[in-house]
Each structure stands twice: as structure tokens, then as C-alpha cells.
């Protein structure tokens, strides 16, 4: 038997290496804890420019104290996992390989194709331009939500950071809009994962 005859398809690299899959699902748990408890905290004192509260059926924690307890516990999971993920994403070159380059022309082309339902997703290992933009965008929203959260939690100790967000009251709005961005991303992300189930499988078993 010659070497050329050995099938190689079974041994091809996983679409998502284990560290991506593990950190993805830890992040999924963490972000749901943060969003649910964040909504509970929001309800204690809705932002003055908005006239709504989140229904208690979708908030985490029975009242404010529990919401805060979840939020300030979940933050360790979210931030620690996020730091590991971003560090590995940069160190392994995965971010550079998967998310760049993002050309505006490609974004427009892929967006039009996506809206027509004609976007190919045969190769899960390559992201289209819209995907690249969304993943990069949600990464940025993740950084903003952590920094604005820190500036709300510690507006005296980290007062320079709070000032960067325009002061305590404005930092609350920034935190809220970063949450909204992440929730909007999640809606699209989860819908597409359900429409293309093999992408969900790839994030669980790797291929």
C-alpha cells in the first residue's frame, strides 16, 4: 500500500479546536447569567430615557440583591473566560486568520447574498464577510461591556475609566447599549445556528 492511498479526510483538522468550543460554551452560560441578572438590576431603577422594565419571567434572581449576586459572580466567569479566549485567539493567530481581512466590498456583496438567501455556507471553516464583521463587532461589544461595567461598579477607584464613558450616569447607558448589541447579535447568531444545524454540531464536536 502506498502512502497516497491512505484517506486523509478523517484526520483533517477540526473546524473549531477544543479551546474554542470550551470557551464558547462557558461564554454562552456566562452571558446568559450576565444578561438575565443585568435585566433584574436594571428593573430596580430603569434608565431615565427609557420607559420600560424587563418582565420578571425573563430576569435572573428574585429581587435586586439576588440579581447583583448573580451579576457579580457571573462577571468572574465571563471576564476570566473572555481573557483566555481573546489571548488564545491572538496568540494562535486564529483571529487574524478567521476574521481578517474584512473588505467593505465583500461585506456589501455577502450581505446582499445573505438577504436573498443565496449565501453559501458549505465550508464552515471559512467565514463570509458579514460573519467576520459580526464576530469582530460582538468582540468589541464584549470589551465595551466589561469596561463600562467596571466603571459603574467602581466609579471612585476606576474614576478615570468612568470619566472615559462620560461619567457614571452615561456609563450606565453605554453598558445598556453594549448589552443591546450583544442581545441583537445573539438573536441572529442563534437563529442562524438553528437554520444551519451542522454549524451547531461543529461547535459541539468540532467538525
Amino acid at each position: 500500500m502506498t502512502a497516497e492511498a491512505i484517506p486523509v479526510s478523517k484526520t483533517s483538522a477540526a473546524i473549531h479546536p477544543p479551546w474554542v468550543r470550551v470557551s464558547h460554551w462557558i461564554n454562552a452560560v456566562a452571558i446568559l447569567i450576565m444578561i438575565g441578572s443585568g435585566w433584574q438590576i436594571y428593573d430596580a431603577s430603569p434608565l431615565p430615557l427609557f420607559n420600560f422594565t424587563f418582565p420578571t419571567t425573563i430576569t435572573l434572581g428574585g429581587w435586586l440583591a439576588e440579581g447583583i449576586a448573580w451579576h457579580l459572580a457571573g462577571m468572574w466567569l465571563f471576564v476570566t473566560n473572555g481573557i483566555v479566549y481573546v489571548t488564545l485567539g491572538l496568540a494562535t493567530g486564529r483571529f487574524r486568520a478567521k476574521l481578517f481581512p474584512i473588505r467593505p466590498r465583500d461585506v456589501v456583496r455577502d450581505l446582499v447574498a445573505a438577504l436573498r438567501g443565496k449565501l453559501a455556507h458549505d465550508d464552515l471553516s471559512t467565514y463570509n464577510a458579514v460573519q467576520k464583521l459580526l464576530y469582530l463587532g460582538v468582540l468589541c461589544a464584549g470589551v465595551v461591556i466589561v469596561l463600562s461595567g467596571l466603571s459603574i461598579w467602581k466609579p471612585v477607584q476606576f474614576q478615570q475609566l468612568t470619566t472615559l464613558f462620560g461619567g457614571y450616569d452615561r456609563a450606565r447607558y453605554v453598558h445598556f447599549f453594549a448589552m443591546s448589541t450583544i442581545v441583537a447579535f445573539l438573536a441572529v447568531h442563534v437563529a442562524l445556528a438553528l437554520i444551519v444545524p451542522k454549524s451547531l454540531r461543529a461547535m459541539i464536536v468540532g467538525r
Partner: protein
Amino acid sequence: MSRKIVPGVDPRLLIRDAAKLLPQPSRRLFLRSAAGIGALTLLSGCDIIDGDTAEHALARISRFNDRVQALLFDPNKLAPTYPESMVDRTFRFNAYYDEDEAPEVDPATYKLEVGGLVDDKKSWTLAELYALPQEKQITRHICIEGWSLIGSWTGARLSDFLKRIGADTRARYVWFQCADTYSTTIDMPTALHPQTQMSFKFADQTLPRKFGFPMKIRIPTKLGFKNPKHVVAMNVTNKDLGGYWEDRGYNWFSGL
């Protein structure tokens, strides 16, 4: 667990009464009713969400967060101060009772009791307290609920008072008892912070009843609920004596 609104009953009063019935502080973290997004999507059917396990785990992490916050606390870092023009003069009454239920303290008979690890345990009349050197601060009051208001408070530095009464500043805590059932305990480094104040005035006027007459402890490095009003006693101690909201599940340190 479903939530039902009882007609003719103010839910806030109901919650307040229910809280009184609960046997011990640790039970007061009502995790049983925590049917949140995490529970629905991930942890449903799993004991962790509504069992004592989650309750204790969250309480332990909250105590860990106390230690982290104590490390983050810089005794020399001042809370931002603001110009007179930014002071909210109407401010906001906030308590677990209504404004007309706020304690009425008689200034003629008022005495501040001092106890614990201090040399001089004599109690202080209002006239004696007013005679202490005073200074004004314009700082942001931040409520645990999220809202914030800029206020102007005038009074004596707590650190000066603690030195004056010969307090053992190596002790871990200072506990405050209020004229109502309220109390709170703070860490000694925060008690010694230069902006931690025994406040006698709000917006240059004698502290009104609704804001804690005759004395409030103003701590701009902590959330509002750690700023006790109508203070009638303080105790320098090595034992954490807890507090009204701390016993009900708010994070103990709650530093800003």
C-alpha cells in the same frame, strides 16, 4: 413559583412583611423564585438554580468580592467632587419605609452613644457634635438600584472623631445603629477615609428629617445604603455586626 398580585395589598409592604417572617438572614436570598433566563435556557430541571447550593455559592462569591473590593480600595483616592451648581437641592428621600414614617429625633435629648474599642465612651450631645471642626463636600450619591444624585453635605471627618475618642483604629469595623431599626457595619479603612463624614447639614441647611436628622454618615466611596441616617450609636469592633440590607443579601463591602 408563580407571582400573584393580591388585590388591595401594596406589594412592597407585603415583601417587607414577608422579609420579617423569614427565620435567618441566609434564608433571605429568595433563590426559589429565581426563574431567570439562565434558568429557563440552561439550568432548568437542575437543582443548582433554586437549591441551597446556589444560595451558598453566591453568598461565598459575595464574600470573596468583599475581599477583592477591600484590595481595590485606595485609602488615598478621593471620590470626584463637583461644583455647587451641580448640587441637586431637592434630592430624593429613600428608605425601606415611607417619608412620613422617618424617625423623629428630639435634638434636645439626642445623644450619640459611643462604644467598643475606644478610650472615651462618653456619649455626645448634638451641641458637642456641632462644635467639631466641619467641612463641606459635594459628591455623588450612588444608590445600589442604579440612580445617582449629586449632593452637598457638611460635617466632621469621622477619622478625626475616631482619633478624638481614642478609637483603636487597628480594629476591623465600625458599626452604626440608627434611630429606626436600621444599622450597618463598615470596614476601618473606609471609616478613616478623608471623605467619610459625620454629616449635620444637607445643602447648607440643618440635615432635614427625611435625609437623616440629626446625623448621617456620608461615605462617598460606598453605595447609598452603607450611608446610615439618624445615627444614634457607633461601635468600634472586630466583629462584623452586619446591617439591615447586608443581612438581606446585599453585598457587604459595596464599595465604589
